[in-house]
């Protein structure tokens, strides 16, 4: 048995072994595709927004409401990520918004390669025109999607009132990397013990710079803040965040 690591080799140690120092992220391959995606979005003249939440927090409903409230300030399209079915893309298309569906077939998150496929599908769907904003609606999951850069410009994390205000404390990684925290289903606040203060305090303990919006896509409460955020994003076209990419 080897003295070095206890493996079952017949030699006393790995004398003829070679040690390589690497220091490279396990996500290096994903991150490199993500940088290409970001560049691709930029060339389309669009800003990409990655929406992350648990299943049922209201990502698709928020996008449907966004489509209803649009009055020519900006245009958008959606890359839908789900484990199975075309349902979300159909819901978005029914509102007159271009949408493509990526199904992961079981995987719990989108990765940059899947989104790259989504971009090409979307380009086919769009023809020549290009929207100012492209939403990537991630697979409903507050854990795994957080680790994967998809090439988005902004990351939005959502929690709905019925889920409870302890979500930022319980799923910190999703809040660490996000630019905006949206609390949805505010119309249900009277029926749940959800503390807005606790949710914001915990989110900011993890990420002091995170912006917060509270809204209800059902009643329209707070939607103007969301639409303002999107409007200002849609005008934010020239910022090149990937200058280090050759």
């Amino acid at each position, binding site marked *: 048995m080897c003295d070095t*690591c*206890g*493996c*079952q*080799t017949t030699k006393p140690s*790995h004398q*003829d*072994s*070679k*040690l*390589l*120092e*690497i*220091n*490279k*992220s*396990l*996500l*290096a*391959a*994903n991150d490199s595709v993500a940088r290409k995606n970001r560049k691709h979005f930029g060339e389309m003249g669009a800003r990409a927004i990655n929406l992350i939440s648990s299943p049922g927090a209201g990502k698709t409903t928020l996008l449907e409401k966004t489509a209803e409230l649009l009055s020519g300030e900006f245009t958008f399209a959606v890359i839908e990520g789900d484990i199975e079915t075309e349902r979300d893309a159909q819901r978005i298309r029914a509102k007159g918004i271009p949408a493509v569906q990526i199904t992961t077939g079981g*995987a*719990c*998150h989108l*990765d940059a390669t899947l989104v790259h496929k989504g971009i090409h599908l979307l380009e086919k769907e769009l023809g020549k025109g290009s929207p100012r904003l492209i939403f990537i609606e991630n697979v409903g999951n507050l*854990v*795994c999607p*957080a*680790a*994967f850069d998809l090439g988005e410009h902004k990351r939005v994390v959502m929690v709905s009132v019925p889920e409870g205000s*302890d979500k930022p*404390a*319980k*799923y*910190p*990684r999703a809040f*660490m*990397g996000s630019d905006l925290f949206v609390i949805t289903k505010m119309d249900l606040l009277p029926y749940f013990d959800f503390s807005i203060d606790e949710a914001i*305090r*915990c989110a*900011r*303990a*993890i*990420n*002091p710079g995170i912006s917060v919006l509270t809204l209800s896509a059902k009643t329209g409460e707070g939607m103007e803040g969301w639409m303002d955020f999107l409007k200002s994003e849609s005008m934010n076209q020239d910022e090149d965040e990937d200058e280090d990419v050759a």
Partner: protein
Amino acid sequence: MHELSLVQGLFSQVKELAFQHQARKVIRIVVKIGPFSGVVMDSFTFAFEVLKEDEELLRHAHLEIIRPGARLCCNLCEREVDAEKEDLDFKGDMLPGQLFSKEKRCPHCGKGSLYPSGGDEILLMQIEME
């Protein structure tokens, strides 16, 4: 559950390097996983042990995980704090959510609150092969 994807990414990097260096087998793989990376160590180890059986090259590989301590930063004085040294009730295997469920005051200025400084790294550090 994304630990499986992470190990797949790890193995494709390791296989490429082993091929470049004409190695016959990989003996040891050292990774560094930060306290705020969101990686569940047991799931990562489990995925490693399951997936390595599919690869002749990796079948004898031993996994070593380096887990650096949590570093926090004060939002007011911007000084860094070593969570374990400053005894902020932080234990090495504590989930970040537990760390942030109670508000922590900065031990330097006593006023600011603390937030994570880095610690989300998931890195391949070393490979030993022959």
